[in-house]
């Protein structure tokens, strides 16, 4: 196996690209549909208010009767009365008179205070890394075809075009309203009770840990399976009684984007409940106690999830002499959110066990814990602090760990333009630094010639200040 001189640089770019994963949840196309402000569902987007979370859970539909609150002109593809004439006529639907598209871009600038820090070394001493200020552009599409079906898609341009989401959401299929919904297509598995981007400082609420990328040589470690990513499959989810929710999903796992992975069966499930505050489905809400602070509530939610990922790797394309091998990752986790007025604390932890982390390594157990404390001073100003801890333990190998402490502030320059400033402090013991450390949950390097080992790399440093800029329109 050979590695070029540019491998570290490519790894840095990979980690930066991962760190800049799409901040999408709801989109301006929905704002246009209802002729409403982004602030109806968001504080500093993509973080959702309780109402925004309910809108997301309802399959991107308002509580009550969705069509009652649609203000954008719709073109009927049939009439309600056509339901009486079915199957002689098609079941009615409608499409928006205007194409339901939104556009946006996002990226970050990084200030590296020390040339000798691992981030400084990785950036070749560059103090201001600006080339990633707008590395991604997005086209989002979101529309409902009737009161039960939503279409939702996201196309991301970052060098090449990538379909990040393409889903059809069938809502209210059986039983009481919101009890049984079906999502089919490409998108995030709902392993948390809240939106996958439910963080003021990070891209994703759940930190991800690309275990196989760390324990496999670089060429085999590219495109690892992680807990939070876009996968193709289907999910049944729902809210029961307004307070309990669940999700059950099946997807194809890591699709063969790198030419290494073979689609397999992946399964997951989640259950949770919420007490206090707005119901999970937003039905029957009388609004926030303080009408001027619609994001605020006194509530507590908790959820548990499990995930089994099967990966098959065919290394023949990149390494002669290796045969196809499989890896199963079993994940179990817990999460909780407590809100008291405008203060919110998110906590979570999960274990991710791989039985074949690489072509040579056997079992590796990873643990991830995180917490994010935030306070909405104003809907446009949210200071927060986020802590993430990662631990890895191969059977018979050294335990290694990594801790990120990230204080920061999220600003809305305008309701659809945001700036997030994050200070990255990091402590690591044994994680490889070949790929460089740029801050953020996805910034793991890959071992190139030296496997991760306790004591091999001990770092404790203030690494970077990240300035994330994004807009959507």
């Amino acid at each position, binding site marked *: 196996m050979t590695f070029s001189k540019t491998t570290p640089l490519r790894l840095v770019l990979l980690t930066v690209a991962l760190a800049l994963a799409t901040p999408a949840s709801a989109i301006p196309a929905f704002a246009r549909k209802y002729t409403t402000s982004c602030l109806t569902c968001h504080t500093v987007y993509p973080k959702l208010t309780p109402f925004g979370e309910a809108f997301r859970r309802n399959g991107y539909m308002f509580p*009550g009767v969705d069509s009652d609150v649609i203000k954008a002109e719709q*073109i*009927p593809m049939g*009439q309600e009365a*056509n339901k009486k*004439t079915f199957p002689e*006529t*098609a079941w*009615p639907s409608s499409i928006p008179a205007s194409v339901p598209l939104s556009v946006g871009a996002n990226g970050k600038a990084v200030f590296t205070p020390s040339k000798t820090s691992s981030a400084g070394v990785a950036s070749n001493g560059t103090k201001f890394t600006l080339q990633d200020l707008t590395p991604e552009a997005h086209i989002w599409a979101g529309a409902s075809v009737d009161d039960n079906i939503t279409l939702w898609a996201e196309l991301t341009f970052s060098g090449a075009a990538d379909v990040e989401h393409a889903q059809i959401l069938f809502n209210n299929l059986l039983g009481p309203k919101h009890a049984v919904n079906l999502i089919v297509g490409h998108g995030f598995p709902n392993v948390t009770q809240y939106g996958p981007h439910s963080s003021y400082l990070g891209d994703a609420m759940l930190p991800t840990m690309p275990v196989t990328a760390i324990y496999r040589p670089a060429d085999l470690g590219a495109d690892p399976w992680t807990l939070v990513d876009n996968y193709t499959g289907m999910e049944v989810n729902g809210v029961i009684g307004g307070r309990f929710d669940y999700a059950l999903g099946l997807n194809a796992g890591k699709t063969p984007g790198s030419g290494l992975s073979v689609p397999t069966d992946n399964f997951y499930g989640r259950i949770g409940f919420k007490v206090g505050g707005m119901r999970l489905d937003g039905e029957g809400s009388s609004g926030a106690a303080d009408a001027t602070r619609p994001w605020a509530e006194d509530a507590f939610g908790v959820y548990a999830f499990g995930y089994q990922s099967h990966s098959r790797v065919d290394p023949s394309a990149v390494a002669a002499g290796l045969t196809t091998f499989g890896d199963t990752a079993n994940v179990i986790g817990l999460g909780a959110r407590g809100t008291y007025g405008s203060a919110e604390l998110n906590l979570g932890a999960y274990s991710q066990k791989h039985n074949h982390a690489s072509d040579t390594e056997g079992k590796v157990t990873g643990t991830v814990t995180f917490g994010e404390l935030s306070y909405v001073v104003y809907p446009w100003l949210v200071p927060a602090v986020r802590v993430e801890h990662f631990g890895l333990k191969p059977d018979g190998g050294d335990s290694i760990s990594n801790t990120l402490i990230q204080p920061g502030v999220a600003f809305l320059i305008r309701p659809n333009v945001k700036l997030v400033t994050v200070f990255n402090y990091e402590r690591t013991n044994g994680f490889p630094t070949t790929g460089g450390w740029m801050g953020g949950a996805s910034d793991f390097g890959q071992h190139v010639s030296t496997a991760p080992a306790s004591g091999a790399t001990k770092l404790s440093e203030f690494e970077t200040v990240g300035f994330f800029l994004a807009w959507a329109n």
Partner: protein
Amino acid sequence: MSTIATRLSRLLLLVASATVGVAAADGGTITGKVEATPAKYLEETVVYLKGPKGAVKPEVKVMDQRAMAFIPHVLAITLGDTVKFQNHDGVVHNVYSPDNEGVNLGSFKQEEERSYTFGQEGSYSQLCSMHPEMLAYVFVSPTPYKAVVDKKGSFTISNVPPGTWQVAVWNSRLKAADKSVTVVAGQTVTVNLAVKR
């Protein structure tokens, strides 16, 4: 001579005015406003009385198809009335309704018209099988005392016999409870209504 003629004409005018006044005074007027939540369904609203039947001569009303739309969007008629459906478009249209007894007037080309006498009280969705986006409503009132609200929700029902009657509302999606109203000859009574889910 001219003075006599002038006086005579004034007398005739006075008698005529008095006659009209008596006729108007035979009945009263109900006026008011409907509020709809959500407001976007307001124009699909008919206010009508459930009580006074009266002897009514059936009428013929017109619903046109023009520029790929039914005109008017809501037509209120009295049970027994006939609606003449017209086609002033350059394309073939159809008129059918799956409601109540079910109606299908078949296909008819430009300048062709077909009539139908609605046999039941209530609303009939008017559809065109060739252009599923087209929609109108024919509301068949049990009494001749009915009105389609205007864009602001206002309505006026004239020549209502004196008495106490139930004022009802039909809306394509929303509902409201009936209201009782007492009509006095020659007077106007105001009734405001609210329709919602």
